[in-house]
């Protein structure tokens, strides 16, 4: 029986602020799961702490709401132990690029086959609007006592230099486009990063929905001109097609250059995609040939409550 969109929704009351960009992201995740028809028990949403952390409670698949900054560690452990699961990790920009940025980089280097979505709104919402790592230097969102004193992290750029093999950006209010990006990310073989621009209507009064859609710059003589555009509409090719240093460097560099665009033109869509770099799973297989057929979660370790692992060869080598 086909699973319907509603099957992926829980009845948990959603307490996000009215108009929050997070709603669009949750909808897009549910739509993506439904479109891919992933059996509910074979999917898990791992989330961090903050408003975005509640995401896992709203989706009717396995949901693991972890700790501030640590979502990727939990998600990777689960994925390595049970590689059959479809795993989506979700967290805020403070969560993933502030307190958890070490795990972000380490996860990139591993390149496990899972998807990581950052809800990027420039502020720490749940603690009443402090500056997050993506807020620009000198900007003063409404609850900051003084302008932000730190330079911003470039999430796309950081993902590129950390080894993520699928890097894309979506916009929380363009749910269909976001849904397509999530599907592409999940289907990608390797670690996919999705930076989602998500206006916080309560605490970020700079990067608002109107700001993204260009309403702020509109004068009577101008037509509304959205800041956001799609890379795919420009003929941009994010894919690393063959295994050569030139190809790698070219695709990495163009993605990095695109990641620097902001202010008047903000690219969305896929920045970079590389399936030539090996997934972590394959690196395990190099050492453990039957890893995928017999991963940790599937291994039979006992028979009638007695261990079946045989260490006699090791003990023989220790015998005196």
């Amino acid at each position, binding site marked *: 029986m086909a699973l319907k969109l509603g099957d992926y929704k829980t009845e948990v009351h959603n307490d996000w602020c009215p108009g929050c960009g997070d709603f669009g992201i949750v909808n897009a995740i549910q739509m993506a799961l439904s479109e891919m028809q992933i059996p509910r028990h074979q999917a898990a949403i791992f989330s961090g702490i903050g408003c975005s952390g509640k995401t896992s409670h709203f989706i009717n698949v396995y949901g693991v709401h972890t700790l501030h900054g640590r979502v990727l560690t939990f998600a990777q452990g689960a994925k390595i132990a049970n590689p059959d699961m479809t795993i989506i990790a979700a967290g805020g920009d403070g969560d993933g690029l502030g307190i958890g940025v070490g795990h972000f980089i380490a996860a990139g280097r591993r390149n496990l086959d899972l998807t990581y979505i950052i809800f990027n709104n420039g502020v720490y919402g749940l603690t009443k609007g402090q500056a997050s790592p993506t807020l620009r230097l000198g900007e003063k969102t409404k609850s900051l006592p003084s302008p932000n004193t730190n330079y911003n992290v470039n999430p796309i750029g950081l993902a590129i230099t950390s080894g993520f093999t699928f890097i894309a950006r979506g916009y929380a209010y363009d749910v269909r486009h976001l849904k397509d990006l999530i599907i592409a990310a999940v289907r990608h073989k390797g670690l996919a990063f999705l930076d989602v621009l998500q206006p916080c209507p309560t605490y970020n009064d700079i990067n608002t929905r109107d700001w993204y859609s260009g309403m702020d710059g509109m004068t009577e003589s101008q037509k509304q001109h959205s800041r956001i555009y799609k890379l795919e509409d420009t003929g941009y090719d994010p894919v690393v097609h063959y295994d050569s240093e030139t190809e790698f460097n070219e695709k990495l560099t163009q993605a990095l250059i695109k990641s620097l665009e902001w202010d008047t033109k903000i690219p969305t869509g896929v920045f970079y995609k590389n399936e030539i770099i090996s997934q972590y799973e394959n690196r395990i297989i190099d050492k453990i040939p039957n890893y995928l057929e017999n991963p940790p979660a599937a291994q039979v370790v006992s028979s009638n*409550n007695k261990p079946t692992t045989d260490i006699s060869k090791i003990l023989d080598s220790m015998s005196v």
Partner: protein
Amino acid sequence: MEQTDISWLIGGPQGSGVESGANIFSRACAAMGYEIFGKREFYSNIKGEHSYFVVRVSNNVIRSNINDVTMMAAFDAETIFRHADEVIKNGAIIYDSDLATTKVDEVHNMDLNYKQRLLKHLDSKNKPHTIQGLLDVAQERGVNLYPISFRNVLSTMADEVNNPRLKGMVRMFNVLSVSFSLGVFGMPPETLLNSVDIIFAKKQAIADLNKKTANYAYNYAAAKFPNFTYRLKPIEKKSGNILIQGYQGTALGKMVCGCRFQPYYPITPASDESVYLESNELLDVKENRPGSTVVVQTEDEISAMGMTIGSALTGTRSATCTSGPGFSLMAETLGWAGINEVPVVITLYQRSGPSTGLPTRHGQDDLMFAIYAGHGEFPKMVYASGDIEESFYDTGRCFNYADIYQVPVIHMMDKFLASSVVTCKRFESDKITINRGKLLDKIEGDYKRFEFVPDGISPRSKLGLENGIFWNTGDESDEHGHISEDPEIRIKKMDKRHSKLEHMLKTIPTEEQAISYGISDYCIMSWGSTKGPILDAIDMLKKENINVGFIQIKLLHPFPTDYIKSLLKNVKTIIDIEANQTGQLGLLLTQNLEKSPDYYILKYTGRAMTSTELYDSLKSIIANKAEKRQVLTHGA
């Protein structure tokens, strides 16, 4: 039967093969039928600092080191400066004679404090500030000096075997030292050569040269110093013994009891266990396809703990292994496992703290920290092994406890255990039982992960199981695992989790909670690796018809108050023995038994207790001549 109980010390700069030298010696002695207890001491350093290994050899079961050294083989100056005074009358010092004129001031690795103490010592004996000065002191006590020019031996051998490369090959000094020793002990040369073969089995390229050198050095020393009092001859071999390095006990336990995932971050002395697990990642499995342990080196200990939990949620038996500083980082994540009732095992190889402390030295400083790690209130278990053999079987228990009670279990080990090399009975995997508790393989109908049930332990689903969908959160949550701040739910959930502590005490057999080695007016209370030195000290006292009881507490949290109280009924004097400064078990006793230890024997130099110093200390207590708090100090 002739009684043998000798202690052999080898020392040299870190990175010069002290450990492989000791392994050759231990193997050779074990092959001759002896029981071995060896311990390695080393600095937090890669190359150059003083490293030494003491191997005790006996025809009886031995579980600790003693103060006396029967023979020392020193291939650098510092070893002599540090240990010459430990060698007993009629014992021997085999040393590189080229070092005799080395002055105290010339040994740059020795810290100033020690140099000052040494100079004072030499002055008091009217000796020059040189190696020879200290050796003269030893000789006057009746120690045999066996000087050998290591370079000359290599040189002569190089000419004889026509291999000029050997000349001045300093990295042969370890093999020279051990071979000289075996020659002087009069051990059969083939035990030496077999042992070299085994130790260098994976380094075939250098095995041959080492064997040749060993043979040559053996003959040289045997001919030159044939009259040493102590001889080591083959004795009847006990069948079924293994020679094992400390950290291998928990690693083998993990393989057998089905731990299939271990993420870790490098830290001394814990990471040896993970590296060993990874080196043996492919597992033979009876009547089934081969298994494997996936070992992942993570970016930090937080990640190691997070990954362990993520993996445990899939139903995989999962563990991590760390030491104090790493465990500190894991504390928040540990609490998450607690509130979500996730079975994980943390093997905690303690070392001396606080902070980085003495990073390569022993300590039992983390008992209280393990019990209270993590903010908020949640149940966990703290369980301690007393020796390497126990650690194998206890690993199996810890995983069972974790699964049965759905709690994090902290398995307390330490540096002393990790870096000991011992002979013990071959491990029997069949003695381990695997109990996964209420882990489900199939679910039909409605499922609530945290369903309120009488024993507080809800049936457990796992990621990927059909109909078993659950939610976890670090927030307080309802039976499904969704966030809830409802006061009534809060009380029920807190009480559900905490009821497990009582449940553990009711259901864990008392012989797994604590071990009583006899009760007497005087009773030692201790935990962990002090077991070996304590049992050996008790044996020494027994020979003088002095009986001292001993209770080894294994289950430290929840504390088995009732059982311990029943054991202590007729005890008059409690002696608390621990490798820490504050007597942490003593605090636990005071808290739980309303009874404080009468005496404390504590050691926090970072060096493990010897049975000699414990014996001395216990004797002074029994003679009623001891202070309430005694601090042990032996060991360089």
